[in-house]
């Protein structure tokens, strides 16, 4: 008994306890806080770029700096914000959702966080080197990223940093799978595992398949750069296309690493605020697996304009991804159908996610058609498309998750009025920023340009987009204010303020060191719901 008490009350605060922790909840918090700080940095870079593009002519930054900014902005948002936030959320929630005391390998879990942080610092350190950070685009295509055209240390640090984050992701994936397969509580069968855990499992599978080829591509590139290799050097029989294949074999599945966990988040939030079970639990799980399978066979749709890939194959595979994605949408609608909906901030962000991601999805079908892609590839149209999926989708999912699980992490709710205000600022700001980019993209404005010709007629939509980006940024500032205010003046709300469903709500908020004092019986995928309604027959 004395041992339990000692464990339940660890020394609060204290930097050392955070640095040395192996508790999955603390590591999860470290992940999410770190990712959020990177988000703010990447967002600042985006604002500088949008300011530069507000009107034709160069006003704010040099082309050198601009090229570094969009390279590091993309790298940060993908590898240091969205994916790590999703993995951090999984770190916190997955053991709780399956009823485990911690991750399967707690020390490896801690290592994976520190590798991520080290990788992020390495990438940012590029700004301090002679020649600046990598300026190759987040895709880092050789020969541009090779020794001849990017001789500075920026690209080396970028490669090194990304290899560290890639190793970190692989470790987390192993932990997720081991925990979900081997550490489930009695009664928690695979068909009762909550959707967020399911999507985290599938995300881990994708990571295990797709990250090793990325490390291979980066190792080859590093050998080319520093040890006189010629993997990607056409002058010596190397192939720049080989890099593109290896890179996109990671790059496209990475998109699903960024979106699947948030499909899970939405699938957790909608039933709670509709007061109904998920419409098609099995359908959603199978659709998630279907997306993962298809995602391995679509990489070369990023290469339609090379003229050197089988366009029909990669086109039909990409089209087919719309089918399981459609299944998800219909399941979410079915969940709300004839429910009793309420709209606190997490629900608003979930609805915003659905509306924005839908636009990202239908434009994704457009760019999966090679002839359409011949026109819009590498234009602002593609920039708008993937921001509708990643920013309007995943990042709205981040905020939905943040508002929904904040009381689980801290015991307090975020302020509701500030939450709604931030949602509307972001929803309007996001659409005002990115809708005009569809317009200028269709008119032929390429991406990754620091300046454009006034005669091209792209000025108006660009100015509008810049205005929108500041509105969007203001929304993010309001979220930060909300977090600070809510933590300063705490209003405790109990263990389960939402009347939620999954197992993490059956313990205290925040949970004790080993998560559960006692486990409720698990007879469905809604054990917390069953606990509140003991007489309920299973629907």
């Amino acid at each position, binding site marked *: 008994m004395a041992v339990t008490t000692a464990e339940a009350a660890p020394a609060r605060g204290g930097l050392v306890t955070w640095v040395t922790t192996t508790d999955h909840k603390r590591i999860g918090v470290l992940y999410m806080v770190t990712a959020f700080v990177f988000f703010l940095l990447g967002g600042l870079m985006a604002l500088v770029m949008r300011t530069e593009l507000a009107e034709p002519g160069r006003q704010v930054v040099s082309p050198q700096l601009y090229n570094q900014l969009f390279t590091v902005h993309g790298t940060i948002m993908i590898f240091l914000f969205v994916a790590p936030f999703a993995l951090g959320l999984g770190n916190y929630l997955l053991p709780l959702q399956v009823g485990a005391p911690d991750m399967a390998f707690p020390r490896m879990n801690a290592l994976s966080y520190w590798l991520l942080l080290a990788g992020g610092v390495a990438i940012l350190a590029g700004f301090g080197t002679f020649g600046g950070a990598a300026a190759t685009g987040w895709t880092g295509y050789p020969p541009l990223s090779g020794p001849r055209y990017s001789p500075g240390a920026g690209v080396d640090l970028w490669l090194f940093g990304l290899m560290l984050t890639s190793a970190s992701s692989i470790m987390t994936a192993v932990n997720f799978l081991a925990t979900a397969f081997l550490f489930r509580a009695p009664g928690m069968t695979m068909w009762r595992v909550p959707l967020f855990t399911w999507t985290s499992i599938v995300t881990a599978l994708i990571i295990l398949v797709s990250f090793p080829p990325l490390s291979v591509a980066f190792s080859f590139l590093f050998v080319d750069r520093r040890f006189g290799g010629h993997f990607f050097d056409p002058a010596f029989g190397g192939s720049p296309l080989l890099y593109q294949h290896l890179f996109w074999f990671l790059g496209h599945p990475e998109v699903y690493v960024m979106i699947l966990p948030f499909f899970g988040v939405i699938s957790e939030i909608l039933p709670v605020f509709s007061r109904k079970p998920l*419409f098609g639990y099995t359908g959603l799980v199978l659709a998630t697996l279907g997306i993962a399978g298809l995602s391995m066979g679509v990489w070369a749709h990023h290469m339609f*304009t*090379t003229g050197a890939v089988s366009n029909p194959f990669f086109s039909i595979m990409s089209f087919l991804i719309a089918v399981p994605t459609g299944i998800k949408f219909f399941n979410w609608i079915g969940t709300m159908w*004839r429910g*009793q909906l309420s709209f606190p901030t997490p629900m608003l962000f979930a609805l915003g996610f659905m509306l924005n991601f839908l636009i990202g999805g239908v434009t994704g079908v457009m760019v999966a*058609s090679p*002839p359409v892609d011949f026109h819009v590839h590498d234009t602002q149209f593609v920039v708008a498309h993937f921001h509708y999926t990643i920013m309007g989708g995943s990042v709205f999912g981040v905020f939905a998750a943040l508002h929904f699980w904040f009381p689980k992490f801290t015991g307090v709710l975020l302020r509701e009025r500030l939450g709604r205000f931030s949602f509307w600022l972001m929803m309007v700001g996001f659409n005002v920023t990115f809708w005009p980019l569809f317009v200028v993209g*269709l008119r032929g404005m390429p991406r990754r*340009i620091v300046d454009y010709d006034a005669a091209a007629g792209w000025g108006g939509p660009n100015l509008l987009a810049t205005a929108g980006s500041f509105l969007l940024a203001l929304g993010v500032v309001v979220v930060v204010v909300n977090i600070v205010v809510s933590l300063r003046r705490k209003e405790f709300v109990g263990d389960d303020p939402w009347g939620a469903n999954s197992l993490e709500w059956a313990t205290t908020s925040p949970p004790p060191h080993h998560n559960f004092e006692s486990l409720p019986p698990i007879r469905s995928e809604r054990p917390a719901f069953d606990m509140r309604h003991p007489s309920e027959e299973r629907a």
Partner: protein
Amino acid sequence: MRPRTLVALGALLLGACSRFGAPPGATEQGRAIAGLWRVFFIAALAVAAIVIGLILWSVIRYRRPRNGRPAQFRDNLPLEVLYTIIPVLIVTALFVVTFQVESGVERPSTHPVATIHVTAFDWSWRFDYGDGAVIAGTPDRPPEMVVPTGRPVRIILSSDDVVHAFYIPDFLFKRDATPGLIQQFDLQVDQEGVYRGQCAEFCGLDHARMRFTVRAVSVTEFETWLANAREQAG
């Protein structure tokens, strides 16, 4: 008179809208792509309207909790099969029209009236018509490519250094210029005029200034121009 003006205005408006934001296509190939774009736009609009409609309907119709809990229903196999099969049919149809258009766009013509070797380099373009007729530019003086109208022109594309992309928005077409790889495609420009072109694949410092223009002239004018250019070179 007035009804006719109205009809003309309506047709103009419809014509402008029916392009859905994309250029009309100044080449035979570009017009085919613009047509395909219309098909995709309408399909996307229809799907988005239905799904957004269902979401908004749910939000408005089922808002605010009443007393008691709603029916805890779930799963409906016939419905789930239906919303799996319908998207499969939609994407299959889109796939079929996609490849009708793509095979047309990529079909080489039997008798191109001219062959132009286009080479991309940091950060401009070189257009080589053979026999010494070469036009090369710099970022400050973008080069101009001259092509005849109404007849197919063959482009043979490559790069001297890094990956670039040859892109002319009014043609709705681009192709990567990859070092070590030679690409070939045909363009048939319909209308005389000057069209903007630009590198579309990020290629380093002056990527944004790697522009060019295409001037399309009649076949006779083109032949005179080419003869002149070759004479000057010789």
